[in-house]
């Protein structure tokens, strides 16, 4: 029995998507907890201090990993939502072209976010 792969899923299999969704979640949680803690402990943050933090190589690595995680996590999550609700059973025969349209739109926005974010965090 061959396995049918879905052309628009990120990891091409449910198991890859499952693991990627969790590893990317952990990376983003580390970022959120760290940045929240940093902002709470530096209430009078100024530009030079904020720039110095984000110019540090460790922070650059965390920033890039977070940005990549957001893109992968959003792709997998929105794929799940779209394939659950924009379906022929719920919306009739026009659901398939509509879902493909939304999926390609979602992928396009995700890639725009990714390129914009990499430009911000790596260009410092």
């Amino acid at each position, binding site marked *: 029995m061959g396995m049918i792969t879905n052309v628009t899923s990120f990891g091409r299999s449910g198991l890859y998507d499952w693991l990627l969704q969790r590893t990317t*979640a952990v990376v983003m949680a580390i970022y959120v907890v760290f940045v929240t803690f940093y902002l709470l402990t530096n209430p009078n943050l100024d*530009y030079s201090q904020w720039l110095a933090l984000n110019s540090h190589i460790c922070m650059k690595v965390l920033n890039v990993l977070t940005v990549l995680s957001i893109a992968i996590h959003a792709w997998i*999550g929105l794929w*799940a939502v779209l394939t659950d609700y924009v379906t022929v059973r719920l919306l009739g025969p026009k659901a398939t072209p509509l879902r493909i349209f939304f999926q390609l739109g979602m992928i396009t*926005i995700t890639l725009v976010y990714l390129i914009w974010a990499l430009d*911000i*965090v790596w260009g410092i």
Partner: protein
Amino acid sequence: MNKKRPVNLDIGTIQLPVTSYVSILHRVSGVVLFAAIAIFLWVLDASLSSEESFNAVKECMSGTFCQLIIWASLAALAYHMVAGIRHLIMDFGIGETLEGGRLGAKVVFIIAAVLIILAGVWVWA
């Protein structure tokens, strides 16, 4: 899969348990966060571009409109993270029973509510 086949679950006629609300709100908050990424990137970009734009972001953060948007985004993030951590805990086999699932769902709502209130205090204090 286009054949008419019997579907037993008609969600519209079922009274949803607390776990369903945790699940659907996890999805809703995820979609909201996808839009909020644009705001987050705009703020990050402006805060790192120059001293002037950094101060402009700070200035904007003292206005009610900006504060509401930031708080709404933080609320979606707080809920989505707490519900996500519940998933990770359940992946380790904890709270997988019916009662465990219900208890976990209630705990998610309580912790998320506390974090959302704290986020409001942070934004407005």
